[in-house]
């Protein structure tokens, strides 16, 4: 059973399927880090991105590049709407975490229903077929979907990394995520940074959904499960650690693919929930916005907050 060819095949397929997982996880983790909110509207953004591409490519028969453009426009528009007329207003009103959660959840469901009405509840794909030609490399089957998928996910991550590292706005983002009030004192416009984070996350979702939707079927509620996967990766990777989430997404993807060797296929769907509970039980430190972690991270590059400001005396930093 543990034939090297099978292992090689599983390894390769895992790597390929983790391409979209990574994008979703990075998107979720980015908004959590910068905006400090669990952005469950990401499921809506993902569905919108998919159906925009689906309508353009599958229904209208236009080339994929047009599909990608339409998808990006749709998702960026949605992200802008959500941030400007949703999150920004809720922040201004100092809405509670509960209130913000209800908002994100309801938006996701509202969009899911809207898409059900428009496109029906049955599964769809971006291209008319899910079958991709396969070439053999060594003895491992490499689908023609695999390489472009891995390449686009990797280049998205690289672009994001470069953006955060070298551009002004990227550094503003890190500064805001470390201490929004302090960043504001330095003249950084918080609202624009928050908007930017949500829009970047939306764009990553668009690429991810095009990858996913050209290989698997999508229904209006598929994105919720995909987002849950991103959430698990974010927990395992550690809050505020974007690349940790990406690595966690790859690791979870590998486990999920390798599990075909150990557990019956009808139970595969339950694996995600097993991951979730393992994450909650064994990674409790991941899921608090820990002040301590932030001071470690802020050692390098960005505007470092003054030591006195960083530890509010009354806040427990367990």
């Amino acid at each position, binding site marked *: 059973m543990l034939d090297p060819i099978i292992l090689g095949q599983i390894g390769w397929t895992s790597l390929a399927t983790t391409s979209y997982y990574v994008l979703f996880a990075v998107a979720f983790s980015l908004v959590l880090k910068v905006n400090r909110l669990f952005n469950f509207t990401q499921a809506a953004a993902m569905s919108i991105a998919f159906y925009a591409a689906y309508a353009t490519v599958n229904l209208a028969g236009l080339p994929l590049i047009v599909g990608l453009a339409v998808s990006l426009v749709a998702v960026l528009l949605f992200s802008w709407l959500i941030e400007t007329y949703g999150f920004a207003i809720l922040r201004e009103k100092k809405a509670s975490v509960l209130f913000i959660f209800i908002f994100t*959840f309801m938006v996701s*469901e509202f969009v899911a*229903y809207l898409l059900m*009405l428009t496109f029906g509840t049955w599964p769809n794909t971006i291209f008319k077929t899910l079958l991709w030609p396969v070439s053999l490399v060594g003895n491992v089957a490499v689908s023609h979907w695999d390489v472009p998928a891995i390449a686009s996910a990797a280049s998205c991550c690289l672009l994001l990394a470069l953006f955060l590292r070298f551009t002004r706005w990227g550094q503003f983002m890190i500064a805001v995520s470390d201490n929004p009030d302090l960043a504001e004192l330095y003249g950084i416009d918080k609202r624009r940074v928050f908007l930017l984070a949500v829009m970047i996350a939306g764009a990553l979702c668009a690429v991810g959904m095009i990858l996913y939707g050209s290989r698997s079927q999508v229904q209006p509620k598929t994105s919720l499960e995909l987002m849950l996967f991103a959430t698990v990766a974010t927990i395992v990777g550690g809050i505020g650690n974007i690349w940790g989430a990406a690595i966690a997404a790859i690791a979870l993807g590998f486990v999920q693919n390798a599990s075909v060797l150990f557990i019956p296929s009808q139970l595969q769907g339950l694996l995600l*929930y097993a991951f979730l*509970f393992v994450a*909650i039980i064994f990674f409790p430190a991941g899921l608090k916005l820990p002040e301590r972690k932030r001071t470690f991270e802020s050692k390098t590059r960005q505007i470092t907050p003054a030591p006195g400001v960083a530890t509010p005396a009354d806040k427990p930093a367990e």
Partner: protein
Amino acid sequence: MDFFYVIVIMVGIYVILATSFNFVIGYGGLISVAHPAFFALGAYASGILARDLGWPVLLTMPIGALFAFASSLLISLPSLRVSGDYLMIASIGFQLGLVEVIKHVSFTGGPGGLTAIPQFLVRDYGTVSYVIFTLVIAVAVVLVTRRIVNSDYGRAISALRDDELAFATLGKNAMWLKIWVIALASGLAGLAGAIYAHYFRFVAPEQFEVLQSAAMLTMVVVGGMRTIWGPVIGAILLQTLPQAITFINLPPSILGPLQGLLFTGVVLLFMFFRPAGLIPAPAIWQGGTSAPIDRKGKLDVRGA
């Protein structure tokens, strides 16, 4: 007439669901979307015990409720150990995962649903008896909830919601209080599920999907979070008004999403334009009336 009975029974069931959900999110301030899962657990547990083991429904209904009550520990124990954010994520996972499990095991009837669940009361005493039964339980649930939130317990829950750390430094065990709040509400949702199962005699996984919690949230938010009568009004309004569109002959594939759109759209509108709901909660905790004192602060010696 039967159509009318169905609506009244559904109103009763949703009064229980919305009231208990409000207990968790409104009074407890705890973020969970797994209420439909506990609704399902009660329905399936009671339905299976009555159908496959032949136990009397009067016994399986409370067992279904207890089963949901106990199952809530699966999400509350691991997640509340850490922080409130975990509960939110654990509840999403539990909700999606449970529906997945129900679809994949055979004794639940899988995706096709559980059929031929034994009826209760209806055959012997007619539908009206079941309508009365449902309404009596719904009223009891509302009254018991009112008693709890106005008692010393309610004061403690309010304090916990306001400031957990300050609450803990006053010698109160915040974690177990939260676990109990979730367990009680989940038990009530399970009871509602059992009532549902033994009337409609058929339950299927898609009736308990996460989208269901949108309906419950709508009732709570529109009616008025953290009030006793808000969720009741919400349940009545949102169970009866959408019936209007069922009269337009639309295929179910459109009707379902349309109703969902209505529910979620209404909540979003309320959130921005009337966040307190139809019945706004008072700014100050109103309980304590059962304590031997009137609110003027004079001690009522009769209570001693």
